[in-house]
């Protein structure tokens, strides 16, 4: 663009005439009325998410108030709470309880494993090491979900590397003893709750590390020094200084680990027992059983649990750590 065209000469009127053409007119309109531009920018994403996503969610919610006719297997499109009543059957309550317990245990274990990694990355890693830690957490986070599960199928298989390793260490009896326990045991690690638990922890661990690290980054190192200068043992410093300051990060991470465990149906299907989790129940109800209302009612359970969870997390200031 030449300089002449860009700079109005002194004789030109202070207010320029509107630019010509459709493009110019549009450009002028956006400048004079920013709200029009805002509306045009927001319209496509809001329409997409509003119609495709929220619309589908409501379609699902609506179906949970329908019921299935037990004899014909047809769906009766009349408002009823009967499906929610079915949810309270002992078998279904079992599924919900089992899933929530697993989610809580997975969250706890991820927090314990994540803390040292996050603390080291936040306080001691510098320069090249910092980048290495960052990538070391991001790569497993973004690696293929199914490949990660597959890797654990290889590890936990009866003839796999774990059995081999314990055999070499003459610790085979330890695995056998563990597998003979009720509930957590089974024929082999890959068909036991222990296996399901390990894989859940592995797959969701990076989601816990990142927010905990973000929370710990904001703790000045001299705070820890001050605590030990004042006579606190490392344990006391951890309990009274580090842990309370890291807690919002842990809660933020637990939103992911908890929510993802509640909704997953692939991990317990591939590595685990035949006893169902919520996700599997939803999948089998909508698929083979064709009972969409019950499947929909089942999905409302994690939504409600997560609603309460998020509400509590917000009160603890967890969202600042995201």
């Amino acid at each position, binding site marked *: 663009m030449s300089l002449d065209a860009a*700079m109005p000469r002194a004789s030109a009127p202070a207010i320029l005439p509107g630019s010509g053409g459709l*493009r110019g007119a*549009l*450009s002028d309109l956006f*400048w004079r009325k*920013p709200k029009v531009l805002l509306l045009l*920018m*927001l319209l*496509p*994403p809001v329409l*997409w998410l509003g119609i495709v996503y*929220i*619309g589908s969610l409501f*379609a*699902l919610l609506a179906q949970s108030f329908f019921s299935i006719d037990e004899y014909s297997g047809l769906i009766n499109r009349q408002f009823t709470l009967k499906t929610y009543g079915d949810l309270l059957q002992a078998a279904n309550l079992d599924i919900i309880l089992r899933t929530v317990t697993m989610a809580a245990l997975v969250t706890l274990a991820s927090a314990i494993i*994540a803390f*040292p*990694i996050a603390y*080291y*990355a936040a*306080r001691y890693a510098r320069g090249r090491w910092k980048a290495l*830690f*960052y*990538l070391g*957490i*991001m790569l*497993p986070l*973004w*690696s*293929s979900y*199914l490949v990660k599960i*597959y*890797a654990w*199928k290889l*590890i936990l*298989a009866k*003839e*796999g*590397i774990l*059995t081999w390793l314990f055999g070499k260490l003459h610790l085979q009896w330890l695995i056998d003893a563990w597998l003979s326990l009720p509930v957590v045991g089974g024929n082999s690690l890959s068909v036991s709750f222990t296996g399901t638990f390990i894989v859940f922890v*592995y797959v969701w*661990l990076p989601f816990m590390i*990142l927010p905990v*690290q*973000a929370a710990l980054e*904001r703790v*000045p*190192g*001299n705070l*820890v020094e001050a605590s030990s200068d004042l006579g606190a043992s490392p344990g006391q410093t951890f309990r009274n200084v580090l842990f309370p300051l890291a807690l919002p990060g842990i809660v933020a991470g637990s939103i992911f680990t908890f*929510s993802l465990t509640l*909704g*997953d*149906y*692939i991990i317990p299907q591939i590595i685990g027992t035949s006893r169902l989790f919520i996700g599997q129940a*939803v*999948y089998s109800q909508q698929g083979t059983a064709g009972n969409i209302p019950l499947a929909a009612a089942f*999905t409302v359970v*994690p939504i409600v649990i*997560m609603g309460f969870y998020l509400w509590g997390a917000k009160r603890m200031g967890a969202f600042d750590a995201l």
Partner: protein
Amino acid sequence: MRSDRGQSAPLSLKVAAACGLLFLHLPLLLIFVYAFTTEEKSFVWPPPGLTTQWFAVTWNRPDVWQALSLSVRVAAISTAIALILGTLCSAAVSRTKFFGRETISLLVILPIALPGIITGIALRSAFSLADIPFSFWTIVLGHATFCVVVVYNNAVARFRRTSGSMIEASMDLGADGFQTFRHVVLPNIATALLAGGMLAFALSFDEVIVTTFTAGQQQTLPIWMLEELIRPRQRPVTNVVAMVVVLVTLLPILAAYYLTRDGDQIAGSGK
């Protein structure tokens, strides 16, 4: 300058952190070994022998290629849609304050915050209520919905660092809105969009939970993989595909990291 630089960590912390990182990485490395094993029927360790023949076998499997091609096409289209919607949304949210701004952020994040199975079954029941048959586009519809958030997050972080006065300066110098977007806004957010686009591609390429509900009989690569996990047909082929998938997803992640590392949006770099 704080006084806490240059200290070394206690040994127990070093060991715990190192063990944690090993726990994250060893299983993925194991995949690489199994891709070369001569064992066909079981997951026996250590591998009885090493071979590269399964790479050739996998190369000649049409079902793998079909699944791969569908996955790439779905990911490409979903990423394109997510780029447009995510950029528009982030531009609107970061440049102006308006009523319902928080709701918009929530709306964008929701598809990834709620468990995938909810998104999946919600879409499926909506398709069945509206009598929409499963097709390529039903998969794209689901994928684009949760890919928006990745683009949005990257672009919002970049917009936050881009000064609004540059846009005003451009307009003052006589550029119209479209020229300003083309010559001022776009160069500023380009790398963030590229990074967001790559992550969105990786996310879509890997997605399985929502896809099982929206694909019908079609097979994307993750669905193919899931089938193999549930009903194994030829284990060595699965091993090879798993290794290739790990390698292929590494590249966009590394690229996205290098594109955004100078910024302040790297999660965990402190505020």
